[in-house]
């Protein structure tokens, strides 16, 4: 009875429950960062990695597709971590960003979006061909999926790809986003990701908003607005180029 009323309270107040849950996760992460890495690995990087582990556990427990948010008591995590709050917080990071830095890197930032879309597409399309796909629709859809997990299905639907190919394109985008989340803080010193300019280029080249959002948070939260600014244009540019120009090029090359 005690347990039942507790879970009833937690489910009824799902977002409030998620505040406590995420608070504990973040607290644990900063504790781990301090005690076991002496602050060398940033607490937020550990928190995001821990979040991914929790998502895995949730997936195993429930067999659902929304990580830990499929556990009824923790459904609020899905709302707090959903696109609405994510975008709201990203917009808030712009407050206090340097408008001049954005203007200065505006051209190279915009350029990086187009190059980023094409680069990921070409890599994804080549992998599709290497795995034996030869029809232009499937190759284009998988290439688009290497952009983001939204560009893939939008392109696949527009071109009439089969559902297993569309699922593959979503998976490719998902892999990309998780790799960006985990890999950014590791790669940052090597690739010189430490100023607004390179952050805007990074956002434009990577394109996955969730990956960029988490990757920069783990690297240097001050860079978040610059990377997020360009990344949010990527999916739109991808949805524009992949089913049109890029598809025509793929078809011309394969035939």
């Amino acid at each position, binding site marked *: 009875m005690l347990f039942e009323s507790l879970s009833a309270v937690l489910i009824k107040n799902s977002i409030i429950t998620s505040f406590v849950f995420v608070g504990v996760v*973040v607290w644990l992460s900063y504790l781990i960062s301090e005690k076991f890495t002496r602050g060398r690995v940033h607490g937020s990087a550990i928190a995001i990695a821990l979040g991914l582990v929790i998502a895995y556990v949730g*997936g195993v427990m429930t067999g659902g597709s929304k990580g830990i948010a499929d556990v009824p008591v923790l459904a609020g995590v899905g709302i707090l971590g959903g696109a609405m709050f994510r975008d*709201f917080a990203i917009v808030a990071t712009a*407050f206090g960003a340097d408008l001049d830095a954005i203007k200065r890197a505006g051209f190279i930032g915009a350029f990086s979006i187009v190059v980023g879309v094409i680069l990921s597409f070409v*890599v994804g399309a080549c992998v599709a061909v290497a795995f034996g796909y030869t029809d232009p629709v499937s190759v284009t859809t998988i290439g688009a999926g290497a952009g983001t997990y939204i560009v893939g299905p939008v392109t696949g639907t527009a071109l009439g790809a089969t559902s297993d190919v569309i699922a593959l394109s979503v998976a*490719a985008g998902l892999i990309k986003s998780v*790799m960006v989340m985990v890999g950014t803080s590791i790669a940052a010193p090597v690739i010189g990701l430490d100023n607004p300019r390179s952050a805007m280029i990074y956002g434009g080249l990577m394109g996955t908003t969730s990956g960029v959002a988490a990757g920069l948070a783990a690297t240097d939260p001050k860079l978040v607005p610059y990377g997020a*600014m360009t990344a949010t244009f990527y999916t739109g540019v991808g949805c524009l180029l992949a089913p049109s120009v890029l598809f025509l090029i793929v078809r011309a090359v394969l035939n």
Partner: protein
Amino acid sequence: MVIYGVALLAFSMLLGTYLGDLIGVMIGVQANVGGVGIAMLVLLILSNLSHRKFHFSSPTESGINFWNAMYIPIVVAMAAKQNIIAAASSGWLAVAAGGLAVIASFALIPVFSRIGGDSENENVDR
């Protein structure tokens, strides 16, 4: 008032998302084009305007800064609701396509950072 800051932030996001949707419809793609990016610019411009004409009171600022500070916890929640199982069990094609795309993109960052790095002023978009 704290709510002024929160309302300003919310207004910026709604306006940006709306404009992003409109651009998407205009160029005929089924996606929001840069909605959040536009929203960020709206907020930047609004806050820079007001610095010249009048100061944000500190409660107003704290209404925005609270959500700024909630960014990492929200990203942690976002990580915790990812479909990791699907990503992990998607097979080598998806891993290769997504993974190689990330590596190639990372490799280009230093190249791009160097382009025009010394002649930054030429890139000012006026």
